[in-house]
């Protein structure tokens, strides 16, 4: 089975002088030079005791250097664990400790933060000539982890208990998708990709590895630029981008605020969207504008990678009003539908929880045996991942997304377990109870509303201070839109938070 690090080695031999990654207004790197950077960092990791199967954290802003770090880690046969540079240090610290990372590659300006976070458990190696450092971590005494062989990376997703959970993805899991996507979308070395999603988000797997497999160039878009539709719209023409992969939220923002009429955007060839449902009106609008591109809806939770797809027709018929289906299974994946604890093959009209099996499905969640038990449905010795997504099978045997089975919501394409927000609120010294709900008004984005009661029941907390507290404890996309103080949180007869009653208060 090919390894992801092998992709860069092969391409750098084939196209040493071709541009690999571009940092707008900063610079670019060729495939040859990127391989050298990865080899240097890989050597550094090995010299410092990193071995095959070890985990190495990456806490770097999106940059050529962060790409070099990822390939360097893979070259050392270790697994990379990307964390959100903008997320609270405590959350990232938890992630690194949870996977018992052997080392962390961190930008010079955040070195001190993490060196003091892990005081007594780390030592620092400066890296001459580069604005990053290596933090060697030592979690001695921690119980050994069950790490699958061939682990490529761990992506942490929101956890309902308040702690993020690590999704273990092997080279085999990732490679089947990377290879299929290259073929399905006819990717070649002439393509120019956008890399909008951060590296801790699974959409980035396509941008990084499918591009490298084929020797395409990739324009790296940092977190601030990714939220700035005017800059995004300008970048397409500036860099002649041909492959654009983004969430519907980003595409809708570009339509609304991107001053799209000023640009040609005729270099676009493939537009992929994933992460959430794309309502038909804005899809129709952007498709009309980007008439040179073929559009595809991709679907798949982090745990399965992309596992279904649906090509959007060249012309969206006038009468089409429902969003397009998530489609049919990719060739490496198989789908079944679970209804009343019985699994079924797809047949028209069937509605239930989508189960996915096949090469792309994760090895499991790291160190969460009970959660893994619940995450999989076993049938005749085979494990099927329970997506928690309710789908309906249409007459063409394509699947349509219906709803979620649990309290997970999507915002800007990110998964959010409302329980993680509640857990953060419970950490506030003055909060007695909290219940978080989400609403999505017609034609608008998901809104998260947090209700809380205080230990001094009549006293609401100052909104600004509470928001600041949450910013320090949650990634920005999880901070609620509204914070509502209640004298008493409504309860069910079993003394649990009464969510339907909270919804009545929205």
């Amino acid at each position, binding site marked *: 089975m090919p390894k992801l690090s092998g992709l860069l080695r092969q391409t750098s031999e084939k196209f040493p002088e071709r541009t690999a990654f571009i940092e707008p207004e900063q610079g670019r790197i060729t495939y040859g030079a990127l391989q050298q950077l990865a080899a240097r960092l890989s050597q550094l990791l090995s010299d410092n005791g990193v071995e095959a199967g070890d985990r190495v954290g990456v806490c770097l802003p999106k940059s050529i250097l962060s790409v070099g770090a990822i390939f360097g880690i893979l070259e050392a046969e270790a697994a990379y664990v990307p964390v959100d540079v903008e997320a609270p240090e405590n959350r990232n610290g938890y992630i690194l400790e949870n996977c018992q990372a052997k080392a962390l590659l961190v930008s010079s300006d955040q070195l001190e933060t993490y060196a003091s976070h892990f005081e007594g458990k780390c030592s620092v190696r400066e890296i001459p000539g580069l604005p990053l450092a290596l933090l060697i971590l030592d979690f001695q005494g921690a119980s050994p982890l069950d790490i699958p062989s061939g682990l490529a990376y761990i992506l942490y997703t929101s956890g309902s208990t308040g702690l993020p959970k690590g999704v273990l993805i092997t080279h085999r899991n990732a490679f089947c998708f990377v290879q299929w996507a290259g073929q399905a979308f006819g990717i070649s070395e002439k393509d120019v990709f956008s890399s909008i999603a951060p590296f801790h988000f699974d959409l980035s797997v396509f941008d990084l590895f499918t591009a490298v497999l084929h020797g395409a160039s990739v324009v790296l878009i940092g977190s601030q630029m990714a939220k700035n*539709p*005017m800059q995004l719209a300008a970048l397409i023409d500036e860099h002649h981008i041909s492959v654009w992969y983004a969430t519907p939220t980003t595409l809708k923002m570009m339509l609304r*605020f991107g001053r799209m009429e000023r640009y040609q955007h005729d270099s676009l060839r493939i537009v992929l969207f994933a992460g959430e449902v794309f309502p038909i009106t804005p899809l129709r609008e952007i498709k009309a504008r980007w008439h040179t591109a073929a559009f595809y809806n991709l679907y798949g939770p982090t745990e399965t990678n992309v596992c279904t797809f649906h090509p959007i027709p060249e012309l969206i018929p006038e009468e089409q009003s429902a969003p397009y289906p998530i489609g049919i299974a990719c060739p490496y994946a198989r789908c079944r539908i679970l209804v009343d604890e019985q699994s079924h093959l797809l047949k028209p009209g069937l509605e239930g929880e989508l189960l996915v099996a096949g090469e792309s499905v994760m090895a499991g969640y790291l160190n969460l045996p009970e959660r893994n038990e619940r995450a999989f449905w076993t049938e005749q010795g085979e494990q099927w991942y329970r997506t928690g997504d309710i789908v309906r099978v249409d007459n063409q045997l394509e699947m349509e997304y219906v709803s979620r089975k649990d309290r997970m919501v999507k915002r800007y394409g990110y998964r959010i377990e409302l329980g993680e927000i509640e857990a953060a609120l419970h950490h506030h010294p003055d909060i007695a109870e909290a219940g978080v709900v989400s609403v999505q008004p017609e034609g608008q984005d998901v809104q998260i509303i947090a209700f809380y009661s205080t230990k001094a029941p009549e006293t609401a907390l100052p909104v*600004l201070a509470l928001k600041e507290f949450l*910013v320090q404890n949650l990634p920005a996309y999880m901070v609620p839109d509204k914070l509502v103080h209640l004298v008493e949180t409504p309860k069910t007869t079993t003394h649990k938070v009464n969510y339907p009653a909270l919804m009545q208060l929205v």
Partner: protein
Amino acid sequence: MESIKGKVREYLVAELNLPISQEELQDDTPLLSSRLIDSISALLLVEFLEKEYKIEFKPHEVNHDNLDSLDLIANFVEGKQQEHA
């Protein structure tokens, strides 16, 4: 300067439904980094400023450095107006 801040303060609280009152919203209260306003509201604010003060943001000017507080917004708007004067 003060009139810009006053107008923007009113817009933020009344139109963007900021969850705090005009009195609580200080000149240096962080807006984006505190998540008081989200990225979409920030873009609506840019539209408002462009229309109200007949200025245009260049794509790279839509950022925290120019929008994260009333002080920064007023400075930016004044600078733009002087460019055109």
